[in-house]
């Protein structure tokens, strides 16, 4: 992968801004962390949604799985899990700082690895479905996971699961800073990984699957293998994001926080579409715009946010399906490395 000089300056600028952000806007630390998580989710949804053409509502499965796994490991490493969830939010057990960070580290690894394995296992059966059957099937998977985890006693069942509270390490700001830098680190990791993937042959294969799967198969590409790998990459980062989000929110509920297909599951799709499917920067821009818009709405129109969300989905999908990047591409094709023949363009306009 080669990085041009302009891009390098851009990346370093963003990196410096990212590191300085919690000190520049100390009041928005939690919001910035959530933004990082949202960008990770949108970017990884884009791998199979935008590049591969497999529009999934089910990535929420990996997100929720990661959330529950990270918290369970973090608690289960040191204390009996069943007693923890039974006591609800009572502070009968307290993590020392060392225990908390150790548990978080192991928990995040588990939260990333297990969803990846799950994606690999179910991938063969689920990814054989095409088009809307895949979309509805993954929607069903996400809701089923939420309903079933809401009935399992050891992870809190219907009453929810309180994640370990952040230990007392001196300063009050440390919780926000810890979670911000953790999520920013995962964001950087995701960006590097996705950019790396997009500059290889792998992306071309995914695009071939999106454009015509049967033809790609006829060209000798083992499409199923690549589809599963693509989904596993998504699952890996979704699990990580879920683990962080669990710690950040501090409370896990099966259908409202973890397997929240109605909110987070749609958000990922919407952010990627808003920014522009099938581009590297689209989901990032889309997630940022969406988060700002959403927070504005959530603050000023409290109570009407889901109404606004429903309207927003309909409007974006109907009037803006190509997204911000698609719109920019239409307006400035030269910037995207497309050669434009002025005569041809004029001729087409006249034809219309």
């Amino acid at each position: 992968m080669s990085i041009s000089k302009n891009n390098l300056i851009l990346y370093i600028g963003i990196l410096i801004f990212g590191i300085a952000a919690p000190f520049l806007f100390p009041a928005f630390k939690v919001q910035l962390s959530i933004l990082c998580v949202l960008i990770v989710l949108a970017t990884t949804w884009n791998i199979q949604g935008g590049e591969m053409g497999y529009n999934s509502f089910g990535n929420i499965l990996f997100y929720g799985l990661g959330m529950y796994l990270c918290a369970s490991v973090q608690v289960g490493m040191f204390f009996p899990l069943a007693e923890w969830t039974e006591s609800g939010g009572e502070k009968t057990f307290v993590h020392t700082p060392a225990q908390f960070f150790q548990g978080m580290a192991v928990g995040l690894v588990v939260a990333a690895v297990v969803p990846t394995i799950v994606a690999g296992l179910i991938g063969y059966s689920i990814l054989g479905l095409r088009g809307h059957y895949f979309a509805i099937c993954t929607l069903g998977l996400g809701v089923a996971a939420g309903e079933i985890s809401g009935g399992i006693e050891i992870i809190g069942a219907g009453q929810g699961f309180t994640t370990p509270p952040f230990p007392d390490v001196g300063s009050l700001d440390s919780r926000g800073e810890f979670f911000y830098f953790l999520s920013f680190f995962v964001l950087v990791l995701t960006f590097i990984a996705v950019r790396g993937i997009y500059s290889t042959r792998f992306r071309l294969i995914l695009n071939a699957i999106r454009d015509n799967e049967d033809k790609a198969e006829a060209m000798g590409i083992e499409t199923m293998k690549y589809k599963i790998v693509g989904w596993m990459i998504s699952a890996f980062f979704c699990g990580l994001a879920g683990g962080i989000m669990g710690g950040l929110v501090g409370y896990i509920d099966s259908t409202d926080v973890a397997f929240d297909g109605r909110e987070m599951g749609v958000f990922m799709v919407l952010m990627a579409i808003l920014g522009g499917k099938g581009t590297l920067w689209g989901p990032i821009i889309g997630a940022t715009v969406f988060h700002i818009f959403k927070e504005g709405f959530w603050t000023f129109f409290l109570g009407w946010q889901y109404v606004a969300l429903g309207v927003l989905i309909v409007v974006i999908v109907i009037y803006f399906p190509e997204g911000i990047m698609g719109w920019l591409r239409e307006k400035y094709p030269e910037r995207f490395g497309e050669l434009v023949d002025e005569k041809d363009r004029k001729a087409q306009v006249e034809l219309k």
Partner: protein
Amino acid sequence: MDFMVFQYPMISVQACLDGVLLGILFALIAYGMALQWGVMNIINIAQGDLVILGGYIAYFMYLYGIHPAWGVIVAPVIMYFVGIAIYKLVINKVVDRDLFISILATFGISILFMQLMNFAFGADVVLANSGYGTTMLFDSNVVLPNSKIFSAFISILFAVCLVIYMKKSKLGRAIRATAQNARAAKILGVDTEKVYAATFGINAALCGVAGALISITFTIHPYMGLPYTIRSFMIVIVAGLGNLPGVAMSGMGLGVFEEFADYILGTEFRIGSVFLLLVLILVYRRFKLSRKREYLK
């Protein structure tokens, strides 16, 4: 896990009868979905929310002292116009587009409806009491509420009327022609835009009937829509488009499955088992189709 259902045969009989009566209702909703899927090639995620909205119409009639059974007449009339309005505002812009776009757009409508109903009617679980009493069978070992029998009867009535209407009337013929080949129908002078609107309206009206019946027999809640969408989707893919006896049969099968899942796994896993069944059916279908592809090779 509770296997009491196998030790006492009467409980099985109860579950089967409950399931069949419930399944007839599901089949009615699924019929609407099959209609619009076949004609407009749209999968409407908001189907279940239309059902719940129909249920609230009957519930409000009950609150204002009118017998909720009249809801099966009033709800479809109101819902027909709601359906037309949704079509004019949103659906006609996504009809010819990618299926995923229509899924997402209707998902948005679903969230919107869910929340508006939550505002307007509150988040309580409600039911409209019909006061129909119960029927005892087999030495009062099996108890069937008369409202369930009433709802199954009304569902069958509406389905039969609709089938006859589709066969005989001019609009029905136009709808069937559009389903077969929209372009050819347009060339031969069918106003497909009008046909689409009517189809969506009829679908919404069917949802209204089903919702009114559900509010009499079971309970309704603003967030209960999605399971009904998934059930009708499942019934349609099991039966196939345009296979009406199949829709009725698989609807009843699903009803019985749900009642047994309720007894064996417990009520908290009921919705989960429905969604899991959907995934299993789709996966089974995928392997069956891939075997077919192998033969072709």
